[in-house]
């Protein structure tokens, strides 16, 4: 018998990252320690590849954050189509990330969490009353860099985290431009920063982006 054990967790995440498809396995709502180690190795490798395109000096890989996020995405995708009596487990499955939120964490989490908005939108379309919808929405509102999406928008953009340091600001604005997330670009503060940021290139890159008129509130 082959020593290589099937690793559905890794298969699913790797396939998602490579092809953008979900592979959903049956009834496996727990991951083993071995599986966790494998996926961290895999994600670290990919992180290094992505860091090649990262402006400025790339931050270090945060294994805990990456593992946490990949589990969130994995569980969310499983629960999207396959569900038994899991309501009681939601709390433990989707526990909050405990740790410092910095550039390293944001990028490590983003390796997989960037797929969460789509899963969330699917879920919301199927059943807006689903308790999982609230849980995922809360995660997306916390991890706003990964939540940037054309349709989805975080309730309140955390400018303190995303606009204060130049590195995070640049990847954050880049993501908005890449995704053409017009909802995000229409946030009053982001809008003016983004237009300055694009500068001469604005009309070539994103013609639909227009300065919004700020009205004086009385």
């Amino acid at each position, binding site marked *: 018998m082959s020593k290589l054990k099937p690793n559905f967790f890794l298969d699913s995440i790797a396939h998602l990252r490579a092809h953008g498809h979900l592979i959903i396995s049956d009834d496996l709502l727990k991951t083993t320690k071995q599986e966790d180690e494998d996926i961290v190795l895999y994600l670290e490798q990919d992180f290094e590849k992505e860091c*090649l*395109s*990262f*402006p*400025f000096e790339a931050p270090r890989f945060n294994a805990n954050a990456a593992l946490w996020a990949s589990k969130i995405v994995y569980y969310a995708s499983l629960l999207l189509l396959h569900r038994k009596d899991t309501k009681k487990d939601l709390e433990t499955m989707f526990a909050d990330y405990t740790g410092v939120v910095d550039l390293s964490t944001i990028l490590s989490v983003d390796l997989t969490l960037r797929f969460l908005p789509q899963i969330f939108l699917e879920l919301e379309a199927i059943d807006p009353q689903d308790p999982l919808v609230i849980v995922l929405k809360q995660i997306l509102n916390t991890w706003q860099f990964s939540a940037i999406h054309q349709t989805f928008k975080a309730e309140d953009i955390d400018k303190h985290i995303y606009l204060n340091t130049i590195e995070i600001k*640049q990847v954050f*604005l*880049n993501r908005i*431009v*890449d995704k053409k997330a017009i909802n995000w670009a229409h946030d009053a503060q982001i809008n003016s920063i983004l237009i300055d*940021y*694009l500068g*001469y*290139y604005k009309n*070539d*890159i994103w013609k639909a982006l227009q300065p919004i008129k700020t009205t004086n509130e009385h």
Partner: protein
Amino acid sequence: MAKNSTDIIEFLVRIDRSDLDTLAQIRHFENLKLAQNENDLWVKGFSMEQINGVAVKTLPKKNIFYIKDSKLFPKESLLPIGKLPTSLLWTPIQMALLLEEPQLNHNFFGIHEAVDIQLAPYNDEKQLFATLINLDSISKSTIECSPNFRLEHLKYVLINNSKLLIIGHPTLAIKGQSFWLYNDFLLPNGYHFKFPILSNSIKQSINSTGVHYALWQKNNSYALIKKSDFKPMSISSFRRTLSLLDIHA
């Protein structure tokens, strides 16, 4: 009633046959006709203007006449000297004096002379096409900190491991030398070939297939750079190139 002398519109000129060649200077008057007899050449059809012009006045050993009542009068004389010989056969002057092309000169040794291909300042403003920048720590950090949208329309090639040639517009905000595109030549902005008419011949001789860009420098040297060597610019591509070639700018 005597006719006013201004009515006379036709003058004749007689010269010796041996001076035939001197007629070259009046050959361009198309209205003239030429005839010859044993010793003399006769040219008729001059107008008053032509007969007073420099071309006629500088003819050597000539006699000028006018004809009145079929008698031949020397110019500015009222006494006829006789009649025009009757046996003259008149031919238009351009038919009578045929042009001859010079024969091939077998003793001409100037064929090895050559024209130096040079650039010369040129006033027309041209759209920037390429930029040549030094690969140093400033350009390296500028590229590595640029957002995607400043890079993705650019293509680059590394030259001698020390310079970057970037094509695309708008280019990066790095000091460098700019070039414009002309017939697959990259010429420094503000310069053109001294003889632009030669550009096709130059292209034929150095880049006839058009697979290269010819990068010209102001010192009139050039380098051929394959078009297919240009790679799309991105931070990762740039970093990989540097690490592959082990360059530490």
